[in-house]
């Protein structure tokens, strides 16, 4: 064999081994970049699923006489849509971004407990894919295939355990790896990641406890919890506001950081921003009660007050969190050199969408408006989740320069953010209107689809498709930035936020 042939054989074997090595490195990764990026990409995968289901459901509901989807599968499709938005997109996306960003923000080499975070990522991935499979095989809430309903519960447990594991790693990182910084001095993204992670670590076990009850009951007597048809009733609080605020709290920190980095200023009221982000933690109290707190005007002022206090505590107080952060971010922008950056525009619009979703949720809990049981709830959830996606776009735009040395250009990010906000509004606002027009939730029949309601559902379908397109284009932009000419990273200059 000549030297040339030997070299050729060696090169071939190397090229064959390279993908295997890459896969093996990815499987065993314990560095924050890979774990965080993997979770974010996993969330992008679920966003496509959520978007497609949202579009299908929108078209299905635009015409009550049509039958795009089998009537028996509709309950599961609605349920899968909620799962995809909350546990497929919002929670893993924000936790993944936290894992990805934290070490750079805290000047640490890696996150704490990286193996726990890696376990969490794999548990979430395996669990969420199994949930998808169980739905496809007629399992899940409302499903008829018993084995797959059981599988759904086990997989959901895995998803929750995975998210809890990652949140423990995130919280521990902020609490232990600050390299001499006081907790009050860490960047706002890190502080909000801590609040969100603690919230997830404290509330997901409550959901796990409910899953255990449901599983034991379903596998055996089925006398206590009503079987598959009622599962979402017991677990509904995990996938609706205000609990979802805990999953997306990091979005508020991203906005606060983006404002000061864009304006190259300091936050004049940093303490108030910390309190604003911290207010989101009150949601933990709401979640552990596992109930919706509706405000009803009673026969006497005392009765009204008894209803108003829990409503205000659990639905109105969390509104202060995004409100304070949005207001003070604008103030920071004003005190520095006001300008627009991709990160700021995306995170500002994202936080605005989250706020709109929470306002909608609070309105839904006012009995006099009669919005409970309508599509209003779905719209509020979409606002919050897609708002978090926009904030994630801002986070990537802000930190990718530090992480890879290749920053993103501002103009495409701003344009994508604007299209993203259009997509969010299209995918949710029409359902706010349809909610006031009494379109019932989780069904595609039994209401008047003529006029505004029919058009509203078509607009929702369009919004979901547009959001999928925005995310796909943003991923393409990130991929392109790694090959094209370098762009100046305007966020590089570190400012104490």
């Amino acid at each position, binding site marked *: 064999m000549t030297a040339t042939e030997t070299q050729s054989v060696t090169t071939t074997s190397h090229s064959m081994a390279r993908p295997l090595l890459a896969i093996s490195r990815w499987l065993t990764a314990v560095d924050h970049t890979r774990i965080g990026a993997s979770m974010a990409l996993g969330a992008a995968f679920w966003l496509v699923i959520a978007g497609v289901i949202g579009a299908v459901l929108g078209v299905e509901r635009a015409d009550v006489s049509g039958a795009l989807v089998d009537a028996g599968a509709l309950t599961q499709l609605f349920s899968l849509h909620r799962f995809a938005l909350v546990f497929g997109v919002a929670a893993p996306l924000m936790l993944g971004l936290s894992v990805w960003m934290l070490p750079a923000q805290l000047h640490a080499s890696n996150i704490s407990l990286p193996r726990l975070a890696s376990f969490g990522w794999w548990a979430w991935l395996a669990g969420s894919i199994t949930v998808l499979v169980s739905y496809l095989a007629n399992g899940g809430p409302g499903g008829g295939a018993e084995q797959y309903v059981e599988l759904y519960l086990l997989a959901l447990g895995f998803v929750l355990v995975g998210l809890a594991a990652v949140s*423990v790693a995130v919280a521990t990182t902020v609490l*232990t790896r600050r390299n001499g910084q006081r907790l009050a001095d860490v960047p706002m993204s890190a502080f909000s990641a801590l609040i969100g992670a603690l919230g997830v*670590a404290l509330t997901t*076990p409550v959901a796990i406890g409910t899953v*255990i009850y449901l599983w034991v009951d379903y596998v055996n*007597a089925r006398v206590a919890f009503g079987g598959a048809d009622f599962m979402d009733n017991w677990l509904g609080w995990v996938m609706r506001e205000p609990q979802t605020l805990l999953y997306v709290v990091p979005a508020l920190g991203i906005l606060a950081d983006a404002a000061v980095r864009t304006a190259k200023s300091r936050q004049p009221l940093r303490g108030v921003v910390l309190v604003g982000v911290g207010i989101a933690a009150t949601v933990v109290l709401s979640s552990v009660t*596992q109930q919706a707190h509706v405000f009803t005007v009673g026969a006497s002022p005392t009765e009204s007050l008894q209803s108003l206090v829990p409503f205000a505590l659990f639905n109105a107080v969390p509104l202060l969190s995004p409100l304070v952060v949005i207001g003070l971010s604008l103030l920071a922008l004003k005190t520095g050199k006001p300008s627009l950056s991709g990160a700021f525009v995306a995170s500002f619009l994202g936080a605005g969408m989250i706020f709109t979703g929470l306002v909608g949720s609070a309105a839904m809990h006012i009995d006099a408006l009669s919005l409970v049981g309508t599509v209003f709830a779905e719209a509020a959830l979409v606002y919050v989740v897609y708002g978090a996606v926009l904030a994630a776009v801002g986070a990537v735009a802000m930190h990718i320069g530090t992480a890879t040395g290749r920053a993103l250009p501002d103009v495409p990010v701003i344009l994508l953010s604007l299209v993203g906000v259009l997509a969010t509004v299209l995918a949710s606002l029409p359902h706010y209107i349809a909610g006031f027009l009494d379109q019932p939730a989780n069904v595609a029949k039994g209401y008047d689809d003529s006029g505004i309601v029919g058009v509203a559902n078509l607009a929702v379908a369009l919004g979901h498709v547009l959001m999928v397109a925005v995310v796909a284009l943003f991923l393409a932009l990130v991929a392109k930035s790694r090959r094209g000419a370098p762009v100046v990273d305007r966020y590089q200059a570190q400012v104490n936020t």
Partner: protein
Amino acid sequence: MTAPALTAGPSRRTSTVFVATGVVAAGVVTLMGGMLAMWLNFRANAPTRVASDGASLIKDWLKKDTAVPEVASNTMMFTFVIACIMAQWAVYSARRGDKSHTTLALSITLFTGLALLNAQIALWLQMEVVLRTDAYETMFYAVTGTMFAVIASAMVYSLVAMFRMLAGRTQDHDVLAGHALYWYAVSGMFAAMWFVVYVQK
């Protein structure tokens, strides 16, 4: 000539394991707390019916012929006290550099956990509750089964801490402090469960 001032040394790093254990322990508290809250809710809302004598109301919760073996459940409660003392003894011994007593304390904690699991199984066998007809049966096995798993997780922690000690990592005081914290949290949650499930029923 005056000696140059020394720069300050690095600040003591907060223990990762201890803090992480604290977060996990808080999660265990909310897990059991949430389950017990649902237990109380179901018990409060259990259906009532008029007794055969027509004079009193019966709440359909715990069956009349189901007896909770109080010896086993009370023994478990007291065994947890021993487990906590042993876990704290391990911390105390490690701080004094006493490897043999640390290992002894950890191994007793581990075996105490084993005794707790044994007592739980004995309790299940004695109660002979069958998962068939009502909410109590479902909730009883779900709550006690979860507690069983939580105790098993505490035993795994004891085992890991003991192996680390035997392997020579005698300065890992924070791991032992975290281990003790976890046992305290588990004991606290068992105390709550003991009161709700075995005493109040």
